[in-house]
């Protein structure tokens, strides 16, 4: 066997899918959905192609920040079972490549969003990428148990950017959509941290479960869930709300608060005995929670457009 064939067999060259995985496609799907909702419910008509471009470039910006996050967090990703198969720890893509892709796509998405829609939306997208890659990944994630709370803002920006892309300005509806995701993020991730305890312990990420214990985390989930409910309901009384949204918000928040109370009342022994069933159910419902709220906003908007409301 020659040296050349040895090299071919041992050195991995990344395929297209490996680079695409750097953009965190699952997170991107949530970004696309919420940005689309923000853009759809805005009281301004947008050309479909411009709307498509806006969502595409917001998604690319979100993906770029995901690639930068993977570049920075490659060391701890390798230690956690949930993230060990990501392209960099799996040895499929180098850290330098991820950094280059992240930076290039960041610049590309911001400039293209500015050209396609307006520069305020582009500036907020740029800030979002900075916030996720620098403020959350570099500053907060490894230094404070409040990492999820403040870092959650990065995930809350897409509907606001969608709204600004359509209207050119920030308004109370856009801020409430931001607030909905912002307040939703901590209970969502802390529920996950409750049943993925070992992962964060191993990586040394100061999740609330690690630094303040699980009882405090359960209390925090309840407090944030109680603070989330009024934000969700308030949105129903603005011009983007409607009967469908209000009905969904009342039911979903009722279930969410009940789930948080159940989690708060449980002890570790009880949770371990049933394999964290309540925490897992709460986490699963939290995904549905966002989908239901933004879906209901779009249904109400559809009813308004059809002249039913």
């Amino acid at each position: 066997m020659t040296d050349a064939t040895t090299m071919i067999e041992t050195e991995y060259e990344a395929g297209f899918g490996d680079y695409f995985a750097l953009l965190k496609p699952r997170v991107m799907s949530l970004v696309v959905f919420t940005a689309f909702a923000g853009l759809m419910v805005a009281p301004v008509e947008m050309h479909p192609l411009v709307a498509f471009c806006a969502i595409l470039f917001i998604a690319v910006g979100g993906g770029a920040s995901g690639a930068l996050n993977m570049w920075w967090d490659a060391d701890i990703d390798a230690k956690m079972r949930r993230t060990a198969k990501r392209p960099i720890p799996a040895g499929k893509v180098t850290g330098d490549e991820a950094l280059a892709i992240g930076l290039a796509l960041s610049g590309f998405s911001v400039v293209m969003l500015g050209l396609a829609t307006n520069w305020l939306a582009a500036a907020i997208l740029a800030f979002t990428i900075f916030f996720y890659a620098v403020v959350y990944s570099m500053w907060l994630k490894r230094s404070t148990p409040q990492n999820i709370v403040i870092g959650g803002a990065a995930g809350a920006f897409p509907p606001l950017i969608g709204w600004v892309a359509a209207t050119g300005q920030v308004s109370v509806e856009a801020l409430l959509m931001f607030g909905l995701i912002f307040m939703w993020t901590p209970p969502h991730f802390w529920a996950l941290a409750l049943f993925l305890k070992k992962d964060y312990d191993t990586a040394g990420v100061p999740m609330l479960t690690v630094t303040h214990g699980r009882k405090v985390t359960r209390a925090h989930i309840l407090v944030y869930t109680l603070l989330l409910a009024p934000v969700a309901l308030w949105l129903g009384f603005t011009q983007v709300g409607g009967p469908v949204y209000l009905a969904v918000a009342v039911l979903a928040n009722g279930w969410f608060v009940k789930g948080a109370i159940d989690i708060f009342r449980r002890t570790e022994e009880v949770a371990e005995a049933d394999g964290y069933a309540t925490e897992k159910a709460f986490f699963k419902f939290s995904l549905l929670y966002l989908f239901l709220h933004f879906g209901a906003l779009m249904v109400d908007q559809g009813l308004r457009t059809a002249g039913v409301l």
Partner: protein
Amino acid sequence: MAIHAEHELHKRRFSRNLGVGLLLAGFVALVFGLTVVKVEQLGAVQGFDHVLRSEMLPKEEAPKP
């Protein structure tokens, strides 16, 4: 030793090249479409073509009595 024309590595490279090619083609189409939409949104545009068009001249004010 026989030389294999098609190694698994070549398939991976091809997938990458094809992906980048399709992305670039899509991007060109997108920018073209966006340009058309943006230009249409400007409304009616008249270019100077060396022909006098009376409808573009400033209207003369009616003489004061």
